[in-house]
């Protein structure tokens, strides 16, 4: 880029489309009679062509897009619950039956409309993704279940069962509050090797459809209900591990 030094700024501005028509013509006229500046312009355009060739500009990975989407979702006001009368009705219609079911573990199938389930699962996965970011994982951090349990007292109006499974390879690492499906829920955090499992718990007798075959972002979701509580385990461990986690928890839950 060894053009005339006194023209260098204007040459660059020309290449960058920053000159008005009359100045552009002036520079063009100079280039027409100056081999060095003509070469300098070619060099600028060659460099541009190289920089703009495919693959140089990075593209946001899908994982990042999911995080950004979750961030927008998390800071959006939830509409009033009344907007979803279907869900309320569903809850009431099964409330009676719910009492009967409450005593035994139930994996309910296909009652809620699928769009409802999908948005709930998005919330759950978003909650899980948020939790994987540093400092969001736990509000109370401990491997002692007897510390986690009382921490929820007064923060939520129910008592989530807090069970440690360290001896089974699923140590509890803490708990926090999360906001799922327009309500504050308890999130218990477990580890499986390097993976995190979020166990979301809230009281709900309304049966919910089974998890989608392909939940968002390749996460695994396992859902069950027991004792008037609904449980959602979300993780990137494989489904077999998550099912095992569910069975181990259920085995230790007070009946």
């Amino acid at each position, binding site marked *: 880029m060894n053009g005339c030094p006194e023209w260098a700024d204007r040459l660059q501005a020309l290449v960058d489309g920053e000159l008005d028509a009359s100045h552009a013509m002036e520079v063009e006229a100079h280039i027409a009679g100056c081999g060095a500046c003509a070469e300098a312009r070619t060099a600028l355009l060659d460099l541009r062509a190289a920089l703009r060739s495919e693959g140089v500009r990075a593209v946001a990975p899908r994982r990042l897009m999911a995080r950004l989407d979750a*961030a927008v979702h998390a800071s959006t006001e*939830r509409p009033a619950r009344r907007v979803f009368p279907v869900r309320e009705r569903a809850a009431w219609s099964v409330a009676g039956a719910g009492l009967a079911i409450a005593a035994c573990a139930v994996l309910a199938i296909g009652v809620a409309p699928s769009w409802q389930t999908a948005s709930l699962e998005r919330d759950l996965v978003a909650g899980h993704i948020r939790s994987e970011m540093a400092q969001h994982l736990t509000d109370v951090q401990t491997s002692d279940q007897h510390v986690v349990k009382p921490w929820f007292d007064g923060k939520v109006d129910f008592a989530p069962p807090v069970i440690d499974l360290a001896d089974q390879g699923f140590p509890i690492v803490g708990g926090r509050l999360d906001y799922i499906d327009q309500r504050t829920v308890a999130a218990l955090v477990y580890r499986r090797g390097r993976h995190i499992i979020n166990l979301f718990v809230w009281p709900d007798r309304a049966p919910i459809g089974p998890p989608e075959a392909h939940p968002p972002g390749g996460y695994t979701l396992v859902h069950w209900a027991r004792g008037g509580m609904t449980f959602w385990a979300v993780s990137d461990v494989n489904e077999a591990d998550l099912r095992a986690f569910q069975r181990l928890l259920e085995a230790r839950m007070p009946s």
Partner: protein
Amino acid sequence: MTGPAAPPAALTADEAQRFRALVMPHADAAYNLALRLCRRTDVAEDIVHDAWVRALAGFVSFRGGDAKSWILTIVRNRFYDWAREQRLKGMARLTRPANDSDDADPDWDVADVDQPTPEDQMVGKTEVGALHALIDRLPPRLREVIVLRELEELSYREIAQVTESPIGSVMSRLSRAREALARAWREREAQMAGVRP
């Protein structure tokens, strides 16, 4: 039910819709800038995510203007915040015993112009890898203007806004960045020609 877990500074559904329409399309631009500045994919993702969280918190006060420049300004500031933290960590590390366990902490490893970046290993293999390596070797102030002009196609005025610099500085940095890149590119071409007679 108590509400400590309710997300703060919630946007209305309309505002969220507007955010998605105005800001989300610039996610690639944000990531591209962050990645070229910090040169680590994991850090770049965190920087962009942080920028999004801040942008969401401040979106109510964003009254029009160019959304791309706006979000890129936030991304760039987050990068310099991160770089400052890394420098402080690096300094703290120097004052600790040599065998302190923090030596194993990968976070202190600030992108250093003189250190080979992972991309360097690709030089000679692919053109794209070589270009990344060449950009990454520029000092950050030159790197950001070349990225904003050639990859994000911002105008001088927009670059001045994003980098909080006078237009004159933008132009001289751009010119120095191009000079350095063109020289390095010519050298590589010559080398390649030497390898393939």
